[in-house]
C-alpha cells in the first residue's frame, strides 16, 4: 500500500511539468480545428469578451484604423510604466521634483520609462479624440449603441482628467503654472457671480477650486489630491468604464455594420453564393457558430472568420504598433521637465497641456464662458447626439448616408473660415473691453468670440437641418464645426500665443527668456 502511494507520488512528481502546463493551458496545444479555436477564445478570461467569429469587415483596417485599440494599448503602457514610476516618485512638494530628476539621471532607464509614460499618455488623448471622431463619422453611435457612446464620452473625460492630474506631479514650473491655470478655470464661475454681485452668498467657483486644490493655492494639498486621483481613483474609474465599454461592444453586436454589409453574398469555394442569415428570433447556440462533426446549421458561404487567430493577430499588431510608436518617440524626445516650481516667477505664457489650449484660448476671452459654459455645452451636446439622431442608416460606413460627405466638406470650410476670421478679427481689433473700457462684465460673459463661435455653429447646423431636412446631416455639420474649431483653437493657442497671451507669428519671435 505504502509502496503504491510512493510510486504514485513519484509518478506525479515526474509528470509535474505536464500537469501544471495542462492546468494552465487547458487546450494544451495550438488550436487546429475551428472547434479548438473557439475553445481557445471562450476559455480565456481576456479573450472571451470577443465573439468566437467576427465579420470580415471588422478586420478591414480603414474601418476603424484601430484607434480605440490604440487608446487602450496606450493606457496599458501608461499603467505599466506608471507603476514603475510610482516606485521612485515621492508625492511631496519638497521631494517630488528631486525624485523626477533622480528618475531622469540615476534610475536605470528611468528617463526612457518616464518618456514612454508621457508619450503614451499623449497618444492616448489623441487616439481617444480621433476614435470619437471615427465613431461619429461612421454613425456607430446609433441604436443600440447609444449607451456605449455615453460610456465613451465618460472615458474621454476621464482620459483628459488623468492626463491633467499627471501634469502636476513633477512639481516643476510647467506643472505649477498649468495647474494654476486649471484651478482658475475651476474658479471661473466667479466671473459670473462677481458680475452679478452674489459671490458673497453663492460661490460655486471658489468651492470648485478649493475642492480641486484642497486650499486656495497650488501646494502640498493639491499635490496629494492630484496624486491620489492620478494613480488610484481615475485609473480605477477608467478600467471599470473600459470594461463596460468593451462588454457593450460585444453585447451590441460587435463593430457597427450595415444591415447587409456585403449584399448577402460571400465567396465560397471559388464562387459567390448567398450567405446564411441567422434569424434574430431564433436561438442557434454554439452549434451555429462552430464547424465540426455535428450537424451543421450554416454549412456554406459566410462572411465571418474565426476570431482566433485572425482578430487576435489584428489586435496584437495594433498593440505592438502603439508600443513601437511610443518607443520611437521616447527614444528621441525627452518628456519636458522645467525648473523647480516657483510661485514667485510666473511662467509667461503659462500654458495648459495642449489638449486644453483650445479652452484656454476661450478662457482668455471670458473665464466663465470659455472655461465652463462652452465645455459643458460641448459635452452635453455630444452626449445628446445618439438621442436626437435616431433614424437608422449609415452605420459602420464612413459618411454612410447620402450627401454626408458634401455636408462634411461644406461644414469643414465654413468652420475653418469662421474660426480663422474670428481669431484674426480679435487679434487685430480687440474685443468689447478694448472699445468700451467701462462696459459691464456681463456683456463680455455673454458676447465674446467663444460664445459667438458656438452661436454661429449652432445657426449653421439649424440651417443644414432645414435645408437638407436631415437630423443626421445637421449633427454631421455641428460635429464637424466643433472638431474644426477645437483643432484650430488648439493650434492657434499652441503656436501663436506668446507672453501675456499676445499674438506672435512664431514662438521664435517671443522675447526670449
Amino acid at each position: 500500500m505504502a509502496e503504491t502511494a510512493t510510486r504514485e507520488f513519484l509518478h506525479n512528481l515526474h509528470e509535474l511539468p505536464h500537469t501544471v502546463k495542462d492546468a494552465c493551458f487547458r487546450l494544451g496545444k495550438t488550436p487546429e480545428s475551428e472547434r479548438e479555436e473557439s475553445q481557445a477564445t471562450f476559455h480565456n478570461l481576456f479573450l472571451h469578451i470577443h465573439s468566437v467569429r467576427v465579420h470580415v469587415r471588422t478586420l478591414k483596417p480603414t474601418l476603424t484604423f484601430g484607434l480605440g485599440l490604440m487608446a487602450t494599448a496606450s493606457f496599458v503602457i501608461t499603467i505599466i510604466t506608471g507603476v514603475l514610476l510610482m516606485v521612485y516618485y515621492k508625492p511631496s512638494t519638497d521631494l517630488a521634483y528631486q525624485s523626477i530628476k533622480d528618475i531622469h539621471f540615476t534610475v536605470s532607464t528611468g528617463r526612457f520609462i518616464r518618456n514612454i509614460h508621457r508619450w503614451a499618455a499623449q497618444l492616448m488623448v489623441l487616439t481617444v479624440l480621433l476614435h470619437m471622431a471615427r465613431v461619429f463619422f461612421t454613425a456607430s453611435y446609433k441604436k443600440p449603441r447609444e449607451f456605449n457612446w455615453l460610456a465613451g464620452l465618460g472615458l474621454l473625460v476621464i482620459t483628459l482628467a488623468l492626463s491633467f492630474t499627471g501634469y502636476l506631479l513633477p512639481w516643476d514650473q510647467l506643472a505649477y503654472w498649468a495647474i494654476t491655470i486649471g484651478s482658475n478655470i475651476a474658479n471661473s464661475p466667479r466671473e459670473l457671480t462677481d458680475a452679478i454681485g452674489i459671490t458673497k452668498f453663492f460661490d460655486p467657483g471658489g468651492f470648485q477650486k478649493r475642492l480641486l486644490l484642497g486650499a486656495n493655492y497650488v501646494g502640498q494639498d493639491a499635490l496629494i489630491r492630484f496624486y491620489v486621483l492620478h494613480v488610484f481613483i481615475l485609473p480605477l474609474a477608467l478600467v471599470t468604464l473600459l470594461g463596460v465599454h468593451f462588454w457593450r461592444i460585444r453585447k451590441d453586436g460587435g463593430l457597427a455594420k450595415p444591415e447587409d454589409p456585403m449584399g448577402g453574398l460571400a465567396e465560397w469555394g471559388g464562387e459567390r453564393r448567398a450567405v446564411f442569415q441567422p434569424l434574430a428570433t431564433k436561438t442557434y447556440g454554439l452549434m451555429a457558430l462552430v464547424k465540426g462533426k455535428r450537424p451543421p446549421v450554416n454549412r456554406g458561404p459566410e462572411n465571418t472568420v474565426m476570431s482566433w487567430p485572425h482578430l487576435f493577430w489584428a489586435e496584437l499588431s495594433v498593440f505592438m504598433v502603439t508600443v513601437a510608436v511610443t518607443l520611437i518617440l521616447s527614444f528621441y524626445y525627452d518628456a519636458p521637465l522645467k525648473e523647480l516650481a516657483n510661485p514667485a516667477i510666473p511662467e509667461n505664457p503659462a500654458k495648459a497641456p495642449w489638449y486644453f489650449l483650445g479652452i484656454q484660448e476661450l478662457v482668455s476671452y471670458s473665464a466663465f464662458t470659455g472655461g465652463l459654459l462652452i465645455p459643458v455645452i460641448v459635452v452635453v451636446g455630444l452626449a445628446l447626439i445618439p438621442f436626437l439622431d435616431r433614424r437608422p442608416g449609415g452605420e459602420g460606413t464612413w459618411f454612410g448616408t447620402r450627401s454626408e460627405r458634401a455636408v462634411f466638406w461644406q461644414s469643414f470650410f465654413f468652420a475653418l473660415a469662421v474660426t480663422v476670421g474670428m481669431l484674426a478679427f480679435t487679434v487685430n481689433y480687440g474685443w468689447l473691453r478694448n472699445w468700451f473700457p467701462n462696459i459691464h462684465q456681463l456683456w463680455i460673459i455673454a458676447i465674446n468670440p467663444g460664445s459667438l463661435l458656438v452661436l454661429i455653429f449652432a445657426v449653421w447646423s439649424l440651417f443644414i437641418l432645414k435645408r437638407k431636412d436631415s437630423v443626421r446631416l445637421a449633427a454631421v455639420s455641428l460635429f464637424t464645426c466643433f472638431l474644426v474649431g477645437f483643432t484650430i483653437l488648439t493650434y492657434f493657442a499652441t503656436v501663436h500665443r506668446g507672453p501675456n497671451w499676445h499674438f506672435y507669428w512664431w514662438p521664435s519671435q517671443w522675447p526670449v527668456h
Partner: protein
Amino acid sequence: MKDPSRIYRCLLLVASLVTVGYLVGAAVHENYLAQWKVVQHQYQDILRQKATDDRGRELLAKFRVEMKQASIPALGAVDRCVTCHNGIDDPRMTDVEQPHRTHPGHILDKHPVDRFGCTVCHHGQGAALTFREAKADDVFWDYPLLPPEMTEATCVTCHDAEKLPPDQIPLLTAGMKLYQQKSCGSCHKLGGRGGALGPALDNEGAKTKHQLIMTSLRPPHTTWNWQLAHFRDPGGVVPDSQMRNPTVTQREALALAVYMLSQWKRDIPESYLAPDKIEQKYRALHPTPLTGEQVYQQYCNACHGNGSYSRWDKKFKRFVPAIRGVSLVSTATREYLQANIEQGRPGTQMPAWGPHAGGLLPDEITGVIEYLRAGAPTAPAMTALTLRGDPSHGLSLFLRNCAGCHGMNGRGGLAPEIGNPVFQRAATDEFIIGTIRNGRVGTAMPAFQRPEAPTLGDQDIADVLAYLRTLGEQKGRNAIAQNVTLSAPPGGRP
C-alpha cells in the same frame, strides 16, 4: 479565400522588430554609451598608467566604475559631479585632461566635497550625469554653472568678502570698489541704502534667467552672461533702460558681474557660516556712518557729477542741478539742503534719502551737507524784501523771463521744477530772492539784478516771488502722485 489577417501579421512583425530594436538601442545607450561610464573607464586607464607605487596601485584596485555623489541635505544638494571629476582630490592628476584633473588651489583642503558638495560654489545642476545638463546653459535649470573666474562670487555665501584675502577674490574685491566708485548707489539700493531709480540689488544673484530680459543677449542665455553684457551696454540689453553706461573695461564688467552674482541672501545653516559672516550680519544692523565725501561719491555722484556744473541729462530729459555750485551753497540754507536730501524732489528723478527711504543715517546727511557747503564763501547777508508782491504782474514777468526754462507753472524743463512742494516748503523767500538777483554761477540761471544793468527791479522780484508762492498749493497734490509713478522701479520682467 484570401487570408484576412496577413496584413496584420506583417504589421506585427515590423512593429515587433522596431520595438526590439529600440529596446536594445535604449539598453545599449543606457549601459554602455553613458557619458559618465566612458569617462570613468578613461580615468581607470589613467590610474593604471600612474600606478607606479603602492599608493597608486591601491587607488587603482579600489576604483569601481559606479555612480558617485555627494549628498548634502543641509545645502539641499545632491552633487554627482564627482562621478566624472574623479581626480579632483588626487594630487597626481595635475597633468591630465579635464574632467580628470585635480581641483586647482587648496580650496578642497578646507572645503571637502563630502561636506560642501560642488554646486554651493560652482552652481550648475549637480544631479545631472552629462556635462551638458550639469553645465545647464540651455536646459531648464535656474542656476547654470559659473565660469571658473566668476566662481568667487559664491565665496560670500559663507564668508564676509571684506575679511577674505583680496588676492583670493580679486574680482569680487574689485567689484565692490567699483560699485562705490561708479556711484551705483545713486540709483540702486543695496542693504537698504541707495536710490530708488533702479531696482534694488539685494538678491540680484538669486535671479533666474526668467527674471531678466534676454531678447538681445547673445547666447548663452545665462544670468552671468546677462550681467557681463549688461555692464558693457545697459541700454543694449534692456531696451529703454534709464541706466547710464558705466564705461567699464571688460575686466571691470567682469568684476561688477561677480559682485552682482554674489548678492544672494541664501538660507545656509549656521554651521556652514564663517565666523566673520555672522559678524557681518551684526555689523549690517549697526552701520558705521560714512563721511560726507564718501556719501557724495557713493550716492550722489552718478547724477550730479562733481556738483560744480549743472548738466542736461538726455535720459532724464531734465537739468541736473549743480549742487556744489558756489552760488547755490552760498544762498541755500542748511535746512533747505536737508529738506531736499531727506525728502527728495517729487516729480523729478531725485529720490528721498532719509533713513526710511534712501537709508542714509542722520549723521551721514549732516556730513554730506557739510561736504556740499565746504569751500563755499560765507553766505552773503540776505536781504528780505518788505515790498508787497502782486502775483498777476509776477505771472507776466515769470512768463517773459522764467517760463522758458522753468516751464509753465514752474513745472520744470531745462531748469529745475520750482513748483514742487518740497521746494516750496524748504526754500525761504530770501533764498528765492537771492537766487533771482544773483543767478547761479556754473548754471544757465542768469542774475536778474546785475548792478550795471538790472533786468528786474525789487518790486518786480517781489511780484515774481508772490506768483511763485501761488504755485505751491496748485502743484502739491499732482506732484506727489507723479512721484509715486516715477519712483516705482522699472520691473525686472517684461
